[in-house]
């Protein structure tokens, strides 16, 4: 039932996020003709257009922002709402409370990442285009990895910083700082934005905007490990907190 609680707490944010991502994907696909004409550069292929506007562009940025909002919450927020006493009086450990919330949140992050892979290949035939399903799934995997890191940042921030807006603002600032640092030549292979957009893959073809080589597994493993450490750290902090 802790899963149910975690789900109910994030339900509104998740459903709104899902409708926003799926709806925008559908709009970008169904009105691709007008949207493609709006680009100033040379004529775009359909796959290039999808990459520019969804997997690299606005929708990816929106996804990052929505994931960041999914990450906030937890016992400090409950303290502000006055329900923390009821929650902590339940015969469950704080670690379990934290891990269940993280599990539900990461599942939601993954589902949001999968939505473009469900919508784009299905709707593309309606505008006489096609988008490779395997490409869409690979991008979903990359979004899930990037989303996991962003979620973990917001998750950790909401354990440390009290206040409705403090945690998301701090997480956003940390994310911006991370993005700036990841632009350094030695660290650019760990730039989460490049990983999510596929640009970090060794054989990413700019002319077709398709991933043709293997995914950057080392960078993915490092990012997942760092995310896992942040969630564990959040659990450790929660265990010692006075609530």
């Amino acid at each position, binding site marked *: 039932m802790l899963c149910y609680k975690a789900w109910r707490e994030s339900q509104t944010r998740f459903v709104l996020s899902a409708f926003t991502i799926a709806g925008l994907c559908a709009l970008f696909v169904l009105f691709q003709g007008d949207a493609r004409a709006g680009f100033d550069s040379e004529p775009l292929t359909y796959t290039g257009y999808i990459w520019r506007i969804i997997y690299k562009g606005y929708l990816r940025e929106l996804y990052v922002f929505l994931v960041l909002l999914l990450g906030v919450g937890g016992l400090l927020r409950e303290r502000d709402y006055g329900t923390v006493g009821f929650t902590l009086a339940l*015969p469950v450990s704080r670690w379990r409370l934290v891990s269940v919330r993280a599990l539900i949140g990461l599942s939601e992050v993954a589902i949001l990442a999968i939505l473009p892979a469900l919508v784009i290949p299905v709707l593309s035939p309606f505008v006489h285009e096609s988008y490779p399903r395997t490409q869409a799934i690979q991008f979903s995997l990359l979004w899930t990895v990037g989303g996991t890191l962003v979620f973990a940042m917001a998750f950790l921030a909401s354990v440390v910083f009290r206040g409705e807006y403090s945690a998301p603002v701090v997480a956003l600032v940390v994310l911006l700082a991370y993005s700036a640092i990841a632009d350094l030549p030695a660290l650019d292979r760990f730039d989460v934005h490049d990983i999510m957009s596929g640009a970090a893959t060794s054989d990413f073809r700019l002319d077709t905007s398709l991933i043709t080589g293997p995914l950057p597994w080392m960078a993915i493993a490092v990012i997942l490990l760092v995310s896992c450490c942040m969630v564990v750290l959040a659990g450790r902090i929660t265990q010692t907190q006075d609530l």
Partner: protein
Amino acid sequence: MSTNTARSLRKVSHGDLLSPPLYSTAWRDPLSACGLVGQFCRAKPVHFWQAAKTTIKMLLGMTHPTAGTGTVLGRSITDSAENREMRRHVAYVGEDKQLYAYMTVEQLVRFTMSFYPDWQSDVAQRLLKQYQLPQNRKVRALSKGMRTKLALLLALARRPALLILDEPTEGLDPVSIEELLHALVAAAGEGTTVFFSSHQISDVERIADRVCIIDHGRLVADLSLDQMRQDYRRITLGFATQPPTNEFKIHGVHQVKIVGRQVTVLARENSDVIVECARSLGAVSVDVDPSGLREVFLETVKEEA
């Protein structure tokens, strides 16, 4: 029978003493109801409500004590595994009675029952009817009185060994207070130990059989109410002339107040000896009345000040 103890338990945060050092306080089950009363907003920086709230939070493992140890139902409050096991048998109702606003009454009941294998569905159903709680209404749409009843239902349907309440009557209307006190008395009657904090002395006096008084963040009295009713006496003495000022230093005298020709003695014991002494000193009128908790409380905190 299991023991609840608090030994030198205290909490300091950012240099402020948040909770009193509770020295060697111990109470044993079965005990029907124990009230924690104190002064409100007098002893800066320790207010009674804060001290009581922090103490309760430490007992439940929500806040980690700076020093000291304690046990609830024989289980350590500082060991997380023992504390979790203890919480299976302890119910807690916080001061503001906030529950998950996004759930309906029915959802919250089902959520809570999933954590307690010994949940009494018949008790929950009976209390739902008795409290007239609308099962499909969201918690956010409930009044504070209704939320209090729901919190009580969630606590009592588990038949807890110990029920801890923080300012249970705070913010409630008189009808809700009455219903709440009845429920607490009934719970105590069914074998649940009730431990609660309050600055409403009349509420404490009605339902508690033991009282701990906190003043300036310190535990200054730990009384059995039955014993108090039996022993504490207010003796009002009238004298024809100016009464003697230093003649009442007798064992058992708690407080002496002289106003004109009238002497009021609050006696903790030995009231017969005090009356005899007063008569020998020429008292023309002697009235002996049982003393209430309010009077004992006021005199205790005055004495400590």
